[in-house]
């Protein structure tokens, strides 16, 4: 039996009970207290550009249809027929004006409203027995978007998404708003790995310490020139609002030279200059930091890297978005998309896609070595010995809690939040302390939706 208060206390002082990475009881609490409340990324508006377009996405065990109605509006509809609970949409994507349940033929418009109920009059006596009017597939309790990114929350009282993201929105723009048109999202690639979902989220949030070791091979083959230990430690790790990430320090030069250094063509640089605030431009141009990996609490991550995709010295940047979808305490479905600025030149889009495939995703050469480590970690965390081990996640802190290096000042860094140069596990601690905040807070009873219900004291009247 786990003493939850003890576990959460340990986590908050940066000592991680190793078993939290593979523990049924912890996972049950995460399901009940974290994933029932947090904002979770499920897709992007560009995946369903036309009326009738839909994709089906899961939030743990719950399936939602993200559908663009004839009115152009995007909705998230719980994929369960109001009659007997059958999935009304069994495809992953497509275009449909209606969803018809294969079981008894109830059908719904792509905005969720019920339109077809076979034998309504004969079976229910019409509206007197079943009020068809106004019935709709259950909408997600909360849905909100930022830069076209669609997030759901199972909490009807979730704060507005923008408020939840907080200052991390500043950094989100680098990945998802390089021009007024925002991104196009392609994919996702999906695969299941025997690893706990938190490990990936922590790694992308702030583990710049692993890069020179885990990813030695990609430097050796000339795919990526940056991860060398000395370059990595000159970058900063920032945490802002509900997310944080890592950056690389770029060689000296103007804003334009720095963006060209990572492979952006001038036509894209001009749009970034129109799109981003002075502070956003200064992080790159004045301060010399380029965003790389990041995570938004709890399980969404980003990558921005600039590998060589051809036999030349040129590099090309790519962006990937992903979620670490929990399947069980020891299993995660990685859902990984390629993202590219919608206004980018076609050739850039093609080569950026190639850069993504070579580096991340199911075949990515960075990713391959990450997952091998995480599978091994998860496996080891299952046993009795792991319950005796508190892992030290205090990098960047002295024993008395003072920081090894002070945070960057406003003069050194224009981005919001707190940023430190050098090695540190600041962001893993931020992520897990939010995790602890959720896990210690019991959930309130959820309200239920009755499908054309009757008061509880109504009984069947027998003739």
């Amino acid at each position, binding site marked *: 039996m786990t003493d939850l208060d003890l576990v959460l206390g340990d986590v908050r002082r940066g000592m991680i009970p190793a078993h939290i990475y593979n523990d049924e009881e912890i996972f049950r609490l995460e399901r009940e207290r974290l994933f029932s409340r947090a904002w979770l990324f499920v897709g992007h508006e560009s995946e369903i550009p036309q009326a009738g377009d839909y994709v089906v996405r899961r939030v743990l065990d719950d399936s939602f249809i993200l559908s663009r109605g004839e009115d152009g509006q995007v909705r998230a509809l719980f994929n369960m027929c109001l009659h007997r609970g059958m999935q009304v949409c*069994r*495809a*992953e*994507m*497509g*275009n*449909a004006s209606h969803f018809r349940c294969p079981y008894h033929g109830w059908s719904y418009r792509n905005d969720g409203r019920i339109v077809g109920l076979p034998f309504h009059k004969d079976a229910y006596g019409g509206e007197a027995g079943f009020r068809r009017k106004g019935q709709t597939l259950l909408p997600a309790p909360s849905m909100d978007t930022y830069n076209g990114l669609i997030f759901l929350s199972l909490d009807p009282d979730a704060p507005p998404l923008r408020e939840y993201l907080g200052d991390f929105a500043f950094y989100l723009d680098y990945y998802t708003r390089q021009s007024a048109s925002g991104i196009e999202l*392609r*994919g*996702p*690639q*999906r*695969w*299941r*790995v*025997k690893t706990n979902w938190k490990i990936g989220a922590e790694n992308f949030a702030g583990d710049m310490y692993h890069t020179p070791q*885990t990813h*030695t*091979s*990609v430097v*050796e*083959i*000339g*795919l990526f020139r940056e991860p060398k230990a000395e370059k990595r430690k000159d970058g900063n790790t920032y945490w802002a609002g509900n997310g944080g990430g890592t950056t690389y320090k770029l060689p000296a030069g103007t804003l334009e030279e720095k963006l060209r250094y990572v492979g952006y063509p001038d036509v894209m640089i001009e749009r970034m200059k129109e799109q981003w605030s002075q502070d956003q431009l200064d992080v790159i141009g004045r301060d010399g930091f380029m965003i790389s990996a990041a995570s938004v609490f709890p399980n969404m991550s980003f990558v921005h890297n600039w590998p060589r*995709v*051809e*036999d030349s010295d040129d590099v090309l940047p790519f962006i990937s978005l992903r979620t670490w979808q929990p399947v069980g305490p020891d299993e995660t*479905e990685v859902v990984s998309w*390629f993202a590219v600025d919608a206004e980018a030149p*076609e050739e850039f*889009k*093609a080569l950026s*896609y*190639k850069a993504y*495939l*070579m580096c991340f*995703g*199911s*075949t*990515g*050469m960075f*990713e*391959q*070595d990450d*997952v*091998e*480590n995480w*599978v091994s970690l998860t*496996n080891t965390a299952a046993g009795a010995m792991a319950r005796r081990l508190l892992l030290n996640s205090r990098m960047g802190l002295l024993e008395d809690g003072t920081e090894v290096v002070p945070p960057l000042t406003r003069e050194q860094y224009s981005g919001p939040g707190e940023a430190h140069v050098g090695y540190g596990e600041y962001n893993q601690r931020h992520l897990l302390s939010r995790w602890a905040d959720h896990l210690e807070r019991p959930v309130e009873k959820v309200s239920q939706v009755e499908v054309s219900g009757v008061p509880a004291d109504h009984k069947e009247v027998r003739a």
Partner: protein
Amino acid sequence: MSTQTQPTAPEPAKEKVAAAPTGNGGPYSAESRLGGHAPRTQRTGRSLAFDDPRHLQAHHWMVEETYILDAQNYEDWLDLLTDDIHYIMPVRVTTALTAGFDSAPHMAHFDENKYSLSRRVARFLTEHAWTEDPPSRLRHHVTNVRTFATPNPDELIVDTAVLLYRSRGDIREASIISAGREDLLRCVGDGWQLARRTILVDDAVLRTQNLAVFL
């Protein structure tokens, strides 16, 4: 001089000409934004007889390749590929019967040319490709081989089914990847080389930790 004739073989079964073509090809290579360099050769007619020398050579090639892949002799494998190879493995998705597509638009697991494949191979040859050190035990089971002629005498199309069994460590559950492949083989010098491969994996969600393997 013997008058004895060869025993008469039964007439080849008059197969019904299928109304819809079957096979593991599809529009993926031609439609890929990274497939501009790829050969466009398509199959002609029905599959070649199993005693046709071209089929025998193609089948032999496929079997030899599986041993190279199982042994992870990837430098040897690269030598089997033409310089204009396109190696593509689309991401499959579940769609309605009438949707007209069953793969994620413009997204693949592999969408490779010779350069990117050579980088993948080079990585395995470093001492720091942790995902395959210790290496997986691999067994590619290749079957359902059929060969088609093309308009070019020196090119053949080969359909195969492949089942990859991948076992890592001592107690981890092994992963299995099932796929259909369509290959374009080209006669170069005195042997055949792979000029295009389309891999239609049978899972929408892969059940393997990564694709640090080739199919």
